């Protein structure tokens, strides 16, 4: 059985989890087995509706001790549940929660782990998973040799497909949950922002924008496109933008449908974090900027002139569509 871990935030299932569900269902078909899911705690979403993704069943462990996240407790609970239901492949999203738990589950079950998978595994001979390495500069095909396998799926790598006329069953699962040692004392959400790793479109600014006071034209474009915003490392280091927006080899790695780079030179460490984007647009006044070599479309021009025009043109296109 393929078992997909359902991550949730504020009692809502995240897009990255739905990607993992879609991936899990496809993998189950490939292996000739069933896809089930595992939920720790509860959500407001209608779990039965996950049947639209062709998910068979959701195992739910609803224990008061799971209301607050504690990686140690979650790891033990997930490992015990996987053993109890006889899971042979476990799937996580490679998001913050996945990164906190999948490795621990791997160690407890002695189940080989590949993190950051970007495709379905090749299972004709063995079990080989493709993942990004060198922070996006290359890929590795990793073979898992153990009977139980664990994969965490890189966000935005696998499109969700739903629409099946089916409902998923919900099966309560009784697993003793141990007491945790971690106390959460505060939560600070950057509310209203589109999550950078899940965004379809990312608009990103570099040192070429000269200062934080000039970000308005970039934010206007992002708003028009419904895009998340990002920045190069020096921009984060100088606190022109919050550091969680810093993308690249030592920042966040993103793979949106569209990445628009404005006033960013395209240093190798920056490219590493963004080069899996499907389409890359570069706006830079220097025709020799290395970023143009990694781009699909480019405008050689001054961002301060190009951005307002571009935002306008998109507005017009949307109005006429």
């Amino acid at each position: 059985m393929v078992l997909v871990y359902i991550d949730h935030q504020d009692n809502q299932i995240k897009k990255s989890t739905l990607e993992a569900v879609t991936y899990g269902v496809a993998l189950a078909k490939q292996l000739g087995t069933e896809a089930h899911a595992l939920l720790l705690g509860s959500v407001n979403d209608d779990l039965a509706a996950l049947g639209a993704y062709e998910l068979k069943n959701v195992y739910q462990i609803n224990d008061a001790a799971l209301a607050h996240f504690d990686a140690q407790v979650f790891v033990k609970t997930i490992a015990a549940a996987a053993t109890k239901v006889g899971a042979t492949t476990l799937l996580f999203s490679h998001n913050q929660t996945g990164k906190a738990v999948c490795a621990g589950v791997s160690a407890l079950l002695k189940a080989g782990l590949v993190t950051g998978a970007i495709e379905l595994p090749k299972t004709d001979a063995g079990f080989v998973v493709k993942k990004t390495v060198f922070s996006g500069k290359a890929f590795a095909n990793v073979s898992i040799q153990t009977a139980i396998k664990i994969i965490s799926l890189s966000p935005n790598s696998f499109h969700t497909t739903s629409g099946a006329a089916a409902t998923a069953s919900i099966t309560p699962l009784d697993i003793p949950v141990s007491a945790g040692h971690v106390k959460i004392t505060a939560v600070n959400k950057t509310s209203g922002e589109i999550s950078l790793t899940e965004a379809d479109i990312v608009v990103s600014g570099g040192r070429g924008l000269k200062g934080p006071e000039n970000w308005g034209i970039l934010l206007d474009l992002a708003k028009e496109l419904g895009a998340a915003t990002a920045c190069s490392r020096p921009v984060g280091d100088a606190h022109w933008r919050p550091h969680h927006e810093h993308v690249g080899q030592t920042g966040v790695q993103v793979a949106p449908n569209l990445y628009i780079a404005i006033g960013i030179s395209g240093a190798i460490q920056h490219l590493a974090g963004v080069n899996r984007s499907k389409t890359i647009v570069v706006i830079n006044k220097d025709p020799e900027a290395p970023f143009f070599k990694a781009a699909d479309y480019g405008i050689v021009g001054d961002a301060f002139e190009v951005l307002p025009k571009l935002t306008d043109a998109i507005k017009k296109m949307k109005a006429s569509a």
Partner: protein
Amino acid sequence: MKILVCISKTPDTTAKIAFADGGKKFEEAGVQWIINPYDEWYSLVRAIELKEKDPTTIIHLVTVGGADAEPIIRKALALGGDEAIRINTDSSDSFYIAAQIAAVAATEKYDIIFTGKETIDYNGASIGGMVAALVDAPYISLATSFLFEGSTATITREIEGGEEVVTVNSPVVVSCQKGVAEQRIPNMRGIMAARTKPLKVLEPAAAEHLTSIESFELPAPKAGVKLVSPDNVEELVRLLHDEAKAI
């Protein structure tokens, strides 16, 4: 207090990524090696800061790697730390490496085990979580700040769409990222001192390899950029809509 800092050797961020043996092996020729930036800039420096605050703190560094990892571990010792342990084996399997670190942790009682949030070569982001599970300690991933008082750590960690602050008593395993500390440059005194700091070489503990890398690939090169005039941004919008189907 005793801190274990996990150190990994990675290619420099500007290293040319190429593969040998028909894609089976990373091409090491001409590659400069560095301490994995997350290990160096954040975990190691934070451990050093804690020792500066409380000089009775003992810092051990551990690396799992062959003799070629010694310049890296010496460089880490030049920044700080009291002694280093090298487990004399090489592997790309996270579980095997974590089992080696857990074996070290089992013999010494560490209050804090620091790792970087991931290495910049294999991007596993797994060692901390595995070590924590193997030694049955709490695990705090993706820390952006780390404070320690008495025997209680107060840690800010990244969550989806924000951050949360947690408290936990030691022992604890923590993976560090930006925010935990600021990068430092080793000075001459540190470099001299590092030469005489103990570096223990241990043979690996028995552990299984759960995965292996079959091959590497490079991304397909881009077809080439289509340039649009800055006076004709409508054309870019049209291309993004009709051709790339991106908006």
